[in-house]
């Protein structure tokens, strides 16, 4: 466990929150573990509420409004109900795998938050390879999902799990490459340093990178339009078709915890993390997470789902070359010397570059559909 | 307006080619001998001027002593239609030739008639029950069912 050693080394080296933080390393560790678990659970409840209400309003309905004031307790009621439901393990299932899958899927979603700063320096572990850690950990939950698909011995589950594995394997690459631009500009892999470096939110300096990362992130956590693994009009309920009770609750939690995690990463990398005027930094961070999540809800409400082969083609024929180009252009810009005083010019230039690249690429090189099966 | 062709006129045309194949012809429809149904159907579909390229529906009626299977044919080109009928008198094992080779649209409808009336269409690719389950006894739309 090389990474573990690295973790502890850095934890021991870095002073968290403020220099007069009471207690030592272990206090810090305990405090943030509790904070992260609490934060994730609350946020998940919050985003479930936001999704259901927002989606309801967008569909000209109301959404849950009876359970508690404004329906705020709806996720709590769901949790109470789901946790107390009967737990069914299908007779044909691979029992051990079926049991382990939700846990393995759930752990990485929590682990992701270890490196995300809530305030300047307020994070569990300020790894100097924070982004790599994020990328590595975020794909671990695939294992859990594949185990769920395999262990259920259900054809729909298996198809869903296979789709998920294929999607994750392809989308890791554009995701990493899209971040490289940010890293080049910020000059650090640590998420805290990246936030500190953002005098202007990187979404303006890296518009193409943001789009690519958003698309790839949506695909990675299976939000619409890439929600192929639980495409309920095709695969019933995807990989968790055979899950009920508490284990299903875990998967439900994973789904939204990952969404929160990706929103948090996008907020950190592109929207300036905890930075912002007037409000306390952690509140800014939450607001930004919710903004990004709302964008996800918005696309989910509007867009149809793409097909599995188109999903792969989109990754390899559009996102991958685009992210390479983005990396190349950013590298040139950085190499040529980043004119810090001419930030606004750079913003306009980058947005123009994005528009031209997207147009040209989709005009001449790659376009989805046309009645053909990609591959 | 779709012109309903007179059965008598078409019958005379058919008689020229296949003599003795028409059992009965009225202004509304014509009844064809069941063993020559397929030939007549092909004739109706492929003859210029008739061009019955569209099969509206196939159905059967149980008249106690015989089953009458009715085919309503149309021509989208000339906008005319004709009802052709065939009778089968065997109540135990009624059988007729299948027209799926000519009009694919008859596929499910023939299976339906097999299911509900028990008329076997020879030459149909998969002649099995369509609405009711395998092992169901009897054919519900027969008049003597229950």
């Amino acid at each position: 466990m090389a990474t573990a050693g690295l973790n502890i080394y850095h934890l021991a080296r870095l002073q968290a929150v403020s220099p007069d933080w009471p207690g030592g390393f272990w206090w810090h560790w305990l405090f943030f573990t509790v904070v992260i678990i609490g934060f994730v659970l609350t946020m998940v409840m919050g985003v479930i509420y936001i999704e259901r209400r927002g989606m309801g309003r967008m569909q000209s309905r109301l959404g849950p409004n009876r359970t508690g004031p404004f329906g705020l307790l709806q996720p709590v009621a769901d949790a109470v109900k789901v946790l107390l439901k009967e737990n069914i393990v299908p007779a044909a299932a691979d029992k051990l795998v079926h049991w382990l899958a939700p846990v393995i899927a759930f752990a990485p979603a929590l682990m992701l938050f270890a490196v995300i700063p809530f305030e300047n320096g307020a994070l569990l572990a300020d790894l100097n390879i924070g982004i790599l850690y994020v990328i590595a950990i975020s794909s671990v939950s695939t294992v859990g999902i594949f185990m769920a698909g395999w262990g259920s011995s259900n054809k729909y589950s298996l198809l869903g799990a296979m789709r998920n594995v294929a999607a994750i394997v392809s989308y890791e690459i554009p995701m990493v490459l899209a971040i490289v631009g940010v890293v080049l500009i910020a000059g650090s892999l640590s998420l805290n340093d990246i936030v500190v470096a953002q005098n202007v939110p990187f979404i303006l300096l890296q518009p193409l990178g943001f789009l690519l990362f958003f698309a790839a992130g949506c695909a990675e956590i299976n939000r619409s339009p890439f929600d192929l693994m639980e495409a309920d009009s095709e695969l019933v309920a995807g990989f968790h078709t055979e899950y009920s009770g508490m284990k299903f609750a875990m998967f439900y939690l994973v789904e939204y915890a990952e969404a929160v995690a990706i929103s948090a990463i996008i907020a950190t990398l592109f929207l300036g993390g905890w930075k912002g005027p007037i409000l306390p930094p952690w509140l800014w961070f939450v607001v930004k997470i919710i903004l990004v999540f709302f964008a996800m809800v918005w696309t989910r409400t509007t867009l149809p789902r793409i097909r599995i082969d188109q999903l792969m083609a989109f990754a390899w024929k559009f996102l991958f070359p685009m992210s390479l180009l983005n990396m190349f252009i950013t590298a040139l810009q950085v190499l040529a010397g980043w004119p810090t005083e001419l930030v606004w010019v750079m913003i306009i230039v980058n947005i123009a570059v994005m528009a031209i690249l997207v147009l040209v690429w989709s005009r001449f090189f790659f376009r989805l559909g046309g009645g053909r099966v990609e591959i | 307006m779709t012109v309903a062709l007179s059965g008598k006129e078409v019958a005379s045309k058919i008689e020229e080619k296949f003599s003795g194949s028409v059992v009965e012809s009225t202004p509304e429809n014509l009844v064809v001998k069941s063993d020559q149904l397929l030939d007549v159907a092909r004739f109706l579909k492929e003859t210029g001027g008739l061009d019955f390229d569209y099969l509206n529906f196939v159905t059967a009626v149980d008249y106690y002593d015989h089953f009458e299977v009715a085919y309503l044919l149309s021509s989208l080109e000339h906008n005319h239609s004709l009802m052709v009928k065939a009778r089968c008198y065997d109540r135990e094992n009624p059988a007729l030739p299948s027209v799926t080779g000519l009009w694919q649209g008859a596929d499910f409808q023939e299976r339906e008639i097999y299911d509900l009336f028990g008329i076997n269409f020879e030459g149909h690719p998969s002649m099995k029950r369509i609405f009711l389950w395998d092992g169901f006894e009897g054919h519900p739309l027969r008049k003597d069912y229950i």
Partner: protein
Amino acid sequence: MAVRTEPFVLNMGPVHPSTHGVFRMRVTLDGEVVVDIEPVFGYLHRGIEKLAEQRTYTGVIPLTDRLDYISSMSNNLAYCLAAEKLAGIKVPERAEYIRVIMSELQRVAALLIAVGAFLNDCGAYFTPFLYMFRERERIVDLFEMASGQRLTYNYMRVGGVSQDLPEEFMPALRKFMDMMPRFMDEYDQLLMQNEILLARAKGVGILSKEQAINCSISGPVLRASGVKWDIRQADPYSIYDRFDFDIPTQTTGDCYDRYRQRVEETRQSLRIIRQAMEQLPSGPVRAEVPHLVRPPVGEAYAHIEAPKGELGFYLVSDNSIAPYRCHIRPPSLINLTALRDMVRGWKIADLIIIFGSIDITVGEIDR
């Protein structure tokens, strides 16, 4: 390197979110590619044809409501036309106009549902479906006002309609007609040009003209394949020869064309309603028909252009109060004939949208 794969069978349905009811397919898959499907029907076989033989001619009308339950008015109309043809009943002028207004409103409602369900199958999470459903709800309000039910209207009778329109009907209809084109534009904006939808639906599930005719396909699916055949103009029933409307057709016959076809037909229906509204005469709404209709011995076939295609009733009478035989020509069942040829070689996701674009109702398939 050639990878050896082995086909496996996936049982889709009878309870599956996107089989539009209780339809079932045994799908043979090679990975995600569909190599063969076998539709299995009969999960909603309720013996309507058998029951019709035991009911009076009026008593059959509630049964027809439940055939294609999202277009009950059209089913009522088709049955009443057949019964009137058989008994030789002349329908009053006002009733004819009311029937046209009702069946065209019903067409709008059913096509909206078809479009919404198709988009839902494409994966647009319920939004277009619920929008379309809201518009349908406006139409259902009008039907409820006239007939007193929201789904199974049982409004038409042999020889007219059951009751005259209430006086508040026409203002409401006029208001609806003013608002509807705006909504239609908004829905076109919602997904008509969406890149993902184009990528999913364009060129997928092509049904050629020849095959469509050979498979006895009818309705929007046939016209999307480029065949200009609409019973309202080819064989005008009721009073459709008095209205001026176009028959839109598409060229390719893919899923996207079928979707476009439905949207354009909705607009034509609105045009017909507007004309019928202006011409609506006053007078009786029900011909003098005896309580128990006893048509002479004979047979009659009446067909209409229902939202799903050619819906026909073939009635045989033996001069009793009940039909001797009542056969229904179900457009949904016959339109499925080409399904197997359309989906082979496509992915499982395409199977869903091709199936959705045919637009079936299981109540009508199984009867």
